[in-house]
């Protein structure tokens, strides 16, 4: 018998290491369910979940929707591009209108950092943050840590390097919190312009040479260059970035040690990862996607489980 310490999953910062362990243990059983001939359980059959996406997403949204359907929840989808948000409705009004239709849980992605935290103060439904601007993306961090645990057995004491566009990445921040809570050593690596100014205050190591970072780490989590969030030029060209920070199979083979290669997707092939590296035996990128459904099932199940 066990329960999360929070009513919402807004960010990894707010949850305890025990919460993360509980989510992992629950995800183990759901992963088992997903490998059965009938991949569905009736646990959330009386629950309605709204997936509210104010930003584009393929993987996360599909993964959440599958997780919800595998738990037998009723699902409604909402994307900002086709809605009244374009007509000038506020966030709170939009969500309150959806909740008035008797929705129990909200999965939300929003471009503004803190948007789900704001909602959590004003509405009763459970909220799962599916990414808020450049702030946090908790379920991604959970599935990344879960994939490391699955591959290496344990997270405590492991060295994880997060490489790429740290400045614009919500995945980086959530990963730092999650990995540190589980006892891993974390390093961030990227061009100085893409490293946040005070990132070292979170207790991570900072490196600008990608080869040194790869030499150091057991796991490399490579992030996408988020061109859509960059209003100014942070580096001369994508080609130059690929030349200095792109990871190829040759670099990995030269390391003379096993390394686990991760990427939250979508990959810019030929920029942060070359095709031969992304498809090499080092990569667990598709395992991450598979684990994503189990982790999201666990989060939804645990949040919904506590009686209101």
């Amino acid at each position, binding site marked *: *018998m*066990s*329960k999360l310490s929070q009513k919402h999953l807004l960010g990894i910062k707010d949850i305890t290491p025990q919460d993360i362990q509980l989510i992992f*243990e*629950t995800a183990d*059983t759901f992963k*088992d*369910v997903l490998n*059965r*001939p*009938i991949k*569905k*359980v*009736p*646990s*959330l059959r*009386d*629950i309605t979940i709204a997936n509210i996406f104010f930003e584009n997403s393929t993987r996360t949204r599909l993964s959440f929707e599958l997780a919800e359907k595998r738990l037998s929840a009723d699902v409604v989808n909402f994307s900002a591009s086709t809605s009244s948000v374009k007509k000038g409705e506020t966030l709170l009004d939009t969500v309150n209108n959806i909740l008035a239709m008797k929705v129990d849980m909200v999965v939300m992605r929003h471009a503004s950092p803190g948007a789900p935290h704001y909602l959590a103060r004003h509405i009763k439904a459970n909220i799962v943050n599916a990414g808020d601007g450049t702030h946090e993306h908790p379920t991604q961090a959970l599935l990344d840590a879960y994939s490391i645990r699955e591959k290496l057995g344990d997270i405590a004491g492991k060295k994880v390097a997060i490489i790429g566009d740290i400045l614009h990445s919500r995945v980086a921040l959530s990963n730092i919190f999650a990995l540190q809570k589980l006892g891993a050593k974390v390093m961030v690596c990227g061009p100085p312009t893409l490293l946040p100014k005070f990132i070292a205050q979170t207790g991570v190591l900072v490196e600008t040479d990608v080869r040194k970072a790869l030499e150091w780490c057991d796991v490399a989590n490579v992030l996408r260059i988020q061109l859509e969030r960059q209003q100014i030029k942070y580096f001369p060209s994508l080609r130059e970035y690929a030349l200095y920070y792109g990871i190829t199979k040759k670099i990995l083979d030269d390391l003379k040690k096993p390394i686990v290669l991760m990427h939250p997707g979508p990959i810019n092939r030929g920029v942060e990862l070359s095709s031969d590296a992304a498809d090499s035996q080092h990569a667990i990128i598709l395992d991450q996607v598979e684990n994503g459904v189990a982790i999201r099932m666990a989060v939804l*199940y*645990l949040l*919904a*489980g*506590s*009686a*209101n």
Partner: protein
Amino acid sequence: MQKKLILDSDLLDITLSRLCQQIIENHQSFEESVILGLQPRGIFLAEIIHKKLEKLIRKEIPLGYLDATFHRDDFRRREIPVKASEVRIPFIIEGKKVILVDDVLFTGRTVRAALDAMIAFGRPAKVELLVLIDRKHNRDLPIAPDYVGRTVNTLSTQKVLVELEAQGHEQNKIWLINNKD
């Protein structure tokens, strides 16, 4: 809190032997028979019965663990969600004669959930239910066991406590606990 002993170690052994004989009488060749222990507490009993049966008939019988947590009907009605346990079914259920094993039969709701959970793995030819303790007069659903260790008349406020050596207890003992004063 008052405790009353229902079964002690020796009597439990005799009871389990009798249950095994009853199963043999019904299953005879054991060709399609499998044993499924219900998580979390039924698996210990299932292991004991499994060991005894294999010794008696000198044949291997497939043994599995079934968890019904996600199929329960009290999800969101209790304070804390029940933690799921491992499901281990290393055989195909389709067409098998399944003996479901649990320690205590009370309202019948767990067994109902277990039947649902089992159907997700295939369509068994037959399902039987073995329980060590049948708490009579407490059923919420029309569920009856096929093999019963001991029938006990209980109040819904009372509790049945099963202590097995396999669970780390010193001796096999089954207690009836009075929660009232």
